[in-house]
């Protein structure tokens, strides 16, 4: 019960910090980096639904993000479709392709699923790279228009785009918290904890897993669409599995299967990478062993670790109270007997 009392103020403080951030940031570049971290966090929040809550390691996630980004890129640059129409279509298209990919890949279990999705992701990459006529091939798409203004609000500078991305981040976290706290969310967790048991409880395994998959690809598609409008240049490399690996690292560092874990991990690791600028290409020399050490010694991540401590402390104080009470009552008994 104590968790509820501090949770709301804490969230309000975090949100206030995020809103104040551009005003205290030393220059626009920091705002830019933070926005990118938020966009990656939205994608990672989506991946966390299938990986952390449902327990299926989907290695094609970056591919779905690329589908979203390319939908926006192709529609706005080549066909003159307005940004927001393309934005909605990007989410829908990723989810539709995700539906069929999920239908096919979720027939396989455990690591067969992971290998299969690895192949699906690579197919997406190859198709983007080879289909010159549609995707501009290895050159990529440049000069993607920034998100169009809504009413009096314009998104033509880093500041306003930061708030736009923040808005979508809050929206996607809110939606995710509704999902994971619903009955459906419990069904996801039940599948993670044991498919056979979940099935005996009356959960339709295939339908529930496909739903988790589609939702997660929808998140990936929207993150990709935001990315396209924000960075305004996309290339086939964004579909590569190494980007999925980045997102897995975010989730693991922050806390797998927790609501805010992916966000925390995305922010921490993005800034870590920024401060290790000189490492850029070699950041994996640090990240690789970091991943291994994390799963070995710290598999629940930062938020998971903190929560575990919280639970342990609560259990300990509960035990103390019970001991005191029983000591008290036994003394009373002694007194009444006397």
């Amino acid at each position, binding site marked *: 019960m104590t968790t509820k009392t501090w949770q709301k103020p804490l969230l309000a403080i975090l949100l206030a910090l995020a809103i104040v951030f551009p005003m205290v940031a030393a220059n626009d570049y920091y705002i830019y980096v933070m926005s990118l971290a938020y966009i990656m966090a939205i994608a990672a929040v989506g991946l966390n639904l299938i990986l952390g809550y449902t327990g299926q390691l989907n290695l094609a996630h970056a591919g779905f993000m690329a589908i979203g980004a390319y939908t926006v890129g192709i529609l706005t640059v080549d066909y003159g479709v307005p940004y927001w129409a393309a934005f909605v279509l990007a989410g829908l298209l990723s989810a539709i392709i995700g539906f069929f990919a999920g239908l096919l890949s979720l027939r396989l279990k455990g690591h067969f699923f992971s290998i299969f999705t690895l192949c699906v992701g690579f*197919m997406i990459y190859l198709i983007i790279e080879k289909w010159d006529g549609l995707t501009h091939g290895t050159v990529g798409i440049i000069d993607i228009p920034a998100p169009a203004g809504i009413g009096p609000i314009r998104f033509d500078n880093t500041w306003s785009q930061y708030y736009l991305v923040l808005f979508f981040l809050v929206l996607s976290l809110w939606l995710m918290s509704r999902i994971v706290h619903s009955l459906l969310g419990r069904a996801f967790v039940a599948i993670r904890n044991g498919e056979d048991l979940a099935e005996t409880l009356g959960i339709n395994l295939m339908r529930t897993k496909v739903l988790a998959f589609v939702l997660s690809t929808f998140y990936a598609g929207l993150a990709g669409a935001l990315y396209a409008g924000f960075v305004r240049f996309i290339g086939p490399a964004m579909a590569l*599995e190494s980007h999925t690996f980045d997102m*897995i690292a975010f989730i693991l560092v922050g806390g797998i299967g927790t609501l805010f874990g992916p966000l925390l991990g995305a922010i921490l690791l993005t800034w870590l990478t920024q401060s290790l600028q000189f490492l850029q290409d070699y950041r994996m020399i640090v*990240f690789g062993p970091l991943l*291994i050490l994390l799963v070995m010694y710290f598999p629940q991540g930062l938020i998971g670790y903190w929560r575990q401590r919280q639970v342990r402390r609560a259990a300990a104080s509960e035990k103390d109270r019970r001991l005191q009470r029983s000591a008290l009552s036994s003394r009373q008994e002694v007194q009444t007997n006397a």
Partner: protein
Amino acid sequence: MNIFFQQVLNGLTLGSVYALVALGLTLVYGILHIPNFAHGALYMVGAYMAFYLVGSLGANYWVAMAGAAAVVAVLAVLSDRLVFHRLRNAPPLHDMIAAIGLLLFLEAGIQAIWGAEFHRLAPPYPQIVRIFDLVAPAQRLIIIAAAFGLMLVLHLFLTRTLTGSTIIAMAQNRDGAALVGIDATKVSVLTFAISGALAAVAATLFAPINLIYPSMGHLVIMKAFVIIILGGMGSIPGAIVGGLVIGFAESFGAFYVSTNYKDIIAFALLVLILSFRPQGLFPSGARA
């Protein structure tokens, strides 16, 4: 006829390289029961080792192959002892993520030393062999002969020697193997060493007709995964047959369908087959 023969030769070359890589994967799968995503990185390190030994130290091609095999075998054993062995009781998700960590580390490490650019291993046998009116580059014939020779040796080792049968026993039933007194540590060290050596040999064989670069393992490892899913996880004949199937599909597909999309063929085949047969072509007991 001649063009058809060329495609057969290409298919055999590709197929035997894929089969060697898939064999290593499938053997390790028998011990670990997880897909070793780092196997492609071992393949890549093997190519770089051969490149270094031939290019910088001027070693003979076959000596370089042996050297690369030894280095990668040690690397594979280290990855087992330092990482996978310690995660024995962790959920499979953790093993897979650790394997990914290993892959990222090895790739970044190689890139830090040799850079991201492409390298070439000078072909040790640039001759062209002529039989009647059929022509074939010597290196391709060497690949096929060496790969099949190695597969034969491996087959004999696994079925005819006591040490070899301990690997098979362990893959079939871990507890049963422990009950009859098989040392699990020894077997897993041996298996990792063999799988690393196979990857390095495959890479060294293929390197003279291919390019060497840090992410060269990606495509090969993914195709090897396709092969062992199709051939049945942990199945040795499945890995060889699957390797040849993918090799032929690619070489004929590249010729008769499209060169541009030849790398997709393996994955399209996987999607197609798994759509109709989720249990793979040769279902085995090891399948979850």
